[in-house]
């Protein structure tokens, strides 16, 4: 069986690792990873493990009930726009944060805030989320 880049990404998350691809031609980091460099399309890529450290620039919240039934037990949840230390932008669930408007307003005033990756298991799938630190 061929190795699936997508499957490997989630299996790495399950092991606590954030693994992307770094292009030998242009040094662009593609995270989560794709088969070709997302910037220049070249195929020569090396695995690169990210620190999981970063800053959340903005925090808002999801709708409920959620479109994706995987999140039925979590929604509504806080959701953030995150710049990882390596300069990559991702969006993900911000764990253990209230979505009440007063809390959202307070976080807006405080952001950007440091975050650290936290792997959540949601219906048997390991996903990338973040903790405020």
């Amino acid at each position: 069986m061929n190795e699936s880049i997508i499957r490997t990404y989630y299996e790495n998350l399950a092991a606590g690792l954030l693994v992307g691809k770094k292009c030998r031609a242009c040094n662009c980091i593609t995270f989560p990873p794709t088969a070709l460099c997302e910037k220049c399309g070249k195929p020569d890529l090396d695995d690169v493990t990210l620190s999981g450290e970063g800053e959340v620039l903005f925090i808002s919240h999801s709708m409920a009930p959620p479109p994706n039934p995987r999140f039925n037990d979590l929604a509504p949840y806080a959701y953030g726009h995150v710049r990882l230390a390596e300069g990559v932008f991702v969006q993900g669930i911000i764990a253990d944060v209230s979505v009440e408007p007063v809390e959202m307003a307070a976080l807006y005033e405080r952001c950007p805030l440091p975050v650290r990756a936290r792997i959540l298991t949601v219906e048997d799938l390991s996903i990338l989320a973040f903790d405020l630190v």
Partner: protein
Amino acid sequence: MVSRLKEPVFILGVGCTRFGNLLETPEIKGLTLQELAARAAAEAFADAAIEPNEIDAVIVGNVTMQTSNMPATYSQIAKWVGAQLKAGVHIDGACSTTNIGVTLGAMGIASGVYRKVLIVGLESTLSQPKKLSPYERVSIPTEEMWLWTDACVNQAYSVPQGYDIFPTYNGFIAQAYCRKYGVSIEDFDKGMFELCRTRRLHGSMNTKAILQQTLEDEAAGYGFSDPFEFWVSAYNPFLAWPSRLRSVVSAADGASAVILSSAEGIDPNGPMPVEVKGWGVTVSDLPWYGDDPTYMEYDRISFDKAYAMSGIQPADIDYLHVHDCSHISSICTAELSGYLPEGRGLSLARDGSLRFDGSRPMSTHGGRHAFGHAWAASAGADTYEAVKQIRGLCGARQIPKAPHTAVVHTHGYAMVSTVMVYEGR
């Protein structure tokens, strides 16, 4: 890259059904999607004053197969729009579909392969076939509709890890806009209120809009004499703080149609042709932005391409529609286009400048909130409004001085950024 049409291409006719609910809205209640498409096409043929057999090709767009149950949409719809035995194809550019169809049709004409092309978009976002019935439909829950619609978004990583359109396309952009321009959350809320009021005013003057009630009348119906008190009430909750329910899309069912022609296909005694001067199309997967969620690079590229192809500048634009599933995103896009000055969009909304009779008229059909949004059909509805405004046929919501140059931008989920430039004569 050279991007110029080798021959001029014109819109001869446009058609559009009322946007609404196939299960409820009187003008379309009980229709099937085939019949909906036929109505839009028939209006376009009448508007163009041509016979269906003059068409050389038909391009049919539909996004949500779960609600149409017609993945080979072109071959099934051709029979319903008088285009049997013609060339054609089914396309899906998500919410940009019909205008992507205009670009493909225009290229077919400018290359000399076709002389006239019909583009049709059809969509139901509110119901699906009841079991395998050919005509009975049942409503679908909102979250089911979004699940199917989100199939257009990054399925490898984003959707499985909690992606939600409302924070990504509304909440983050709203917060970034406020921070970038020093707008308080309270003033943001007032600006969004006024923008919604304008869109709803436009919808109230458009018999094809899904919402034809002004915001003031809706507030009064809930017992509020002050519509802003209604705006901040529990009847208008935060969908993604600080963006509220009435600052976003109203999902709808509907169909639209556009007929393109070469110059030699124009009847000098027929309706005013509207020239397709140029366009820009750019795609981007998530993330749609980096440090600044108010700035989407792919939109910058699309506008630049469209302006270069058509030879216009932002100052030439007389009417603008930008994709407004998210009202705050639409303000950012309008500012990026150069039609509105940076950081001024909300204040212009508050002083009425964005109304049909204001100095910067936008989205006079009501936009995605008041006119409604039927994914594959909506870009065609935007083009329909631009053509009618250019021709001076919009009645009560007509821009006082009919626009000469209209620009229509759409975000096809997610994302196909499409900018069209149309000019009257």
